[in-house]
Every structure is written in C-alpha cells, then in structure tokens.
C-alpha cells in the first residue's frame, strides 16, 4: 500500500497479466481433449440433482472425499431410462471439460447407468415398459378365477414359508381342493428359468395356479421381474394369482398375473371359496326344500278335501238307497199300472247308483274315457307333455291303441 499508484500500473506484472478469459481458455485447452480426461468412466454416488425445463440435467458425482459437478445435455438426458435420484450409485461415462462462464471443471456425462440397486430398478423399468406396450398388463386380459377350483397349482419353493402358508389356508378354508405343488427356485440367477418351467409344467393339470414367494429384499425377489417369468404367466392357460413378497413389494409378475394377492396366504383365500359360507348355503337350501315341500303337500291336501266335499259319495248313496226302499214299499201297495211306472222310476234310480260307482278310473274308462301315456310310460296330463310326432298310447277299457300326436290344440279359456 506504500507504493504509489503510478508505479503499480507501470510494473511489469500488470502488463503481463492474463485476462480471466485467457486463463480459463488456457485451462480448457489443457483439460479438454486430454487423453486421461476424455471418455472416462467414473463411479460415484449421485447428489444435488437438478433438471431445469431446458432439458439438461445437472448433478454432482461424489464419493467420501471428493465431488465433481456433472452435466448431461438434452439428448443424453432424455435417453435416460431411469430417474436420476440422489443417493444412487452410478457409472458415468463422458468427458471432462471446463465451463467458461463459471470457470468450473465438470464432467459432461454422455451416459449414466445405475449400479447396485439402481441397476435392478433400471431393468425393471425397461421390462415393464416393453411388456406394457405389448398390452400384457391390459385389464381385459385378466381372467376370472374359478369359483370352485378342483385343482390348484402352487408354484413356489418347497423350502419356503410361502408354501406352508398357502397349504395351511387351503386346508382350513376349502379342503375339497387338490393341490399340485410345482416346485421351483425362487431366487438367484437360475430362478427365472426354474419358475418358467414350473409354471409351464402345470398347464392342463389345474384350474388355477398360485405363484408365491415369501418376503425378501428387492434382489431376493428379482426373479419375479424377469421378462421370461412374465411371459410364462401371460401364456398360462389357466388364471394365475401372484403373491410375491409382502404387500409393498410389486413385481412385474404381479402386473401380468390375473389377480395380485398381497401375500401368499391372501392368494389362497382369493383362489378358493369359503367352506363356512358353503355350509351356510347348504343349510339355507335344505330349509328352502323343506319349506316348499311342506307348502306343496298342504296345497295337495286342501284340494283333495275340497274334491271329496263336492262328491260326498257316502251321503249320495244313502239318499239313493233311501229313495229306492221307499219306492219299493210304495210299489207293493199300488195298482199294476202305477207299479209299472214306479218300476221304471226305480230303474232310473239304479242307473244313477251305477253312475256313482263310476267314480273309479277303471269305471271311467268303461264309460268311454281313455287314459293317454307318453313314450316313457308317464301319464299325459297336458298338451305340453307331448310334441307333434310323439308316439302315445291310448288305454281304453279292453286294451290299448298306439297313436301318433298330429297336432296340439290348447283349450280356449
């Protein structure tokens, strides 16, 4: 501060000073295109994500001790198949460059790929999007479950709790069902192929199948996000109930399945009717049968009573016999001419008595009525019991007539 202003301005340092632009340009010329800083692959954790409307993506890539600002240009950012989120581990490929306006060295990311959990997530999205575009998740593809399945397929690990849970619920709820266990691996690299084979093996053997696995980490459940498993579910000839992990776990298998159950136990419930409800239904049907037949019998009794009251054969017979006795007595005490008239009258009374005897069916036939039976031997009581062309038998007093129905004519009412 002691030096005069003049001497500062004229000192060689000032004359030789670089402008900021020059400095940054120099920096950029060293950094940009440097073989060690071009086409690099960097692993780190994502932080400070910013995605402004311009379509660019900004974030930092960091590890425990350092961080570097990153930018993705619009095309590269739009091609990302997953959401850039803070905390995920990624592998970034790109070039280091200097951004002059801020004098900042940054990594220009051409591609970002998640690793660890992020990689799972990316694959999930890709499979999901592809299958969705194909329409495999469409609601109209979902098939209804049979109400009374005879045989249920169970695709699961024989070592798992899921199998035990499903069998316990089925045994309690609907023991009539038969269970066909189609065992498979439910985790690890070999699991998808194993699940596919187990599903395919059930084809044609069951009415419905449950695909189950107990809870686990995202990695544990990963086989159920495999595209091969999804396609095996889609091509299953019978409806599939998926029950993978806990309620919060959603897998691709759940999207393709006809019904998604939150847990293996819930799948067993969804796939079967409840024996308790069936018992109640049986009881109510038994009660209905008893009630209806009681009503029907009561109606029949009433009708018989009313017919009997109308005929009153005993009463009529007594009256007719009384009349006959009185006529006989009177005839004996009257003259010949009168007696002849009375005999005629008496014969009339006798024939009335004979008509009364004709109440029986056989006597009815003797009077010229006939009984008609159908081809099965059952009585024909209505035109509805036969069809034109049917052979019928007409029973008369001394035999039977074979006949064919030509036409049905309903009585006018």
């Amino acid at each position, binding site marked *: 501060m002691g030096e005069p202003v003049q001497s500062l301005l004229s000192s060689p340092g000032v004359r030789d000073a670089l402008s900021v632009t020059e400095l940054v340009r120099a920096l950029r010329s060293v950094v940009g295109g440097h073989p060690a800083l071009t086409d690099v692959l960097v692993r780190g954790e994502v932080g400070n994500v910013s995605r402004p409307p311009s379509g660019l993506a900004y974030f930092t890539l960091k590890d425990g001790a350092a961080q570097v600002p990153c930018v993705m240009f619009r095309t590269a950012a739009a091609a990302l198949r997953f959401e850039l989120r803070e905390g995920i581990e990624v592998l970034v490929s790109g070039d280091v460059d200097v951004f002059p306006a801020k004098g900042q060295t940054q990594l220009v990311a051409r591609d970002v790929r998640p690793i660890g959990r992020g990689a799972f997530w990316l694959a999930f999205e890709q499979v999901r999007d592809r299958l969705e575009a194909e329409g495999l998740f469409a609601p109209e593809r979902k098939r209804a479950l049979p*109400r*009374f399945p*005879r045989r249920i397929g169970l695709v699961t690990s*024989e070592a798992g709790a899921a199998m035990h849970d499903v*069998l316990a619920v*089925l*045994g309690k709820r609907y*023991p*009539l*069902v*038969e*269970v*066909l*266990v*189609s*065992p498979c691996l439910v985790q690890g690299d070999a699991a998808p192929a194993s699940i596919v*084979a*187990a599903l395919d*093996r*059930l084809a044609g*053997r069951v009415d419905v199948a449950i695909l189950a696995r107990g809870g686990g980490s995202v990695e544990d459940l990963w086989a159920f996000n495999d595209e091969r498993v999804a396609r095996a579910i889609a091509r299953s000839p019978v409806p599939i109930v998926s029950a993978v992990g806990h309620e919060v776990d959603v897998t691709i298998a759940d999207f393709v399945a006809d019904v998604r159950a939150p847990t293996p136990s819930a799948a067993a419930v969804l796939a079967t009717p409840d*024996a308790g409800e*069936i*018992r109640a*239904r*049986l009881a109510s*049907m*038994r009660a*209905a*049968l008893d009630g*209806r*037949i009681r*009503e*029907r*019998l009561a109606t*029949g009794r009433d009708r018989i009573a009313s017919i009997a009251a109308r005929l009153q054969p005993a009463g009529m017979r007594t009256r007719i016999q009384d009349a006959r006795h009185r006529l006989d007595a009177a005839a004996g005490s009257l003259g010949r001419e009168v007696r002849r008239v009375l005999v005629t009258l008496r014969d009339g009374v006798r024939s009335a008595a004979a008509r009364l005897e004709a109440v029986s069916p056989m006597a009815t036939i003797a009077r010229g009525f006939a009984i008609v039976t159908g081809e099965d031997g059952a009585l024909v*009581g209505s035109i509805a019991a036969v069809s034109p062309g049917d052979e019928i038998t007409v029973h008369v007093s001394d035999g039977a007539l074979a006949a064919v129905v030509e036409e049905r004519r309903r009585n006018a009412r």
Partner: protein
Amino acid sequence: MTERTFEEALAELQAKVDALSAGHLPLADALRTYEEGVALVRLCTERLEGADLRVSRLSGD
C-alpha cells in the same frame, strides 16, 4: 350317486330348490325333486366334512 364335482352337485341342488320353489310341479314330481334335493344336501355336506386337503408334487421334468 354318479361321480360329479362338488360344484356340479351344488348347481344341481340349486336347480332343484329353484324348481320346487317355482311351484308348478305335479305332486309326484315335487316329492321326487325334494328327495333328490335332500340327497344332494347330504352328499355335499359329507364331501365337505370328509375332505382332507390332498397335496401332490410335480417332479421337475
């Protein structure tokens, strides 16, 4: 009784209940329907109560 599935037996039973409830059956048919219905109730109940979950295993290929 001929071998039929539980579901078929249940459906048949429901049909008998419906037929009897409609009330158009001649007395003899009504009685026969009733007896058959009661037999089906018995059959279904026996199947339900006598059932023991059958589990079999499909071996890998």
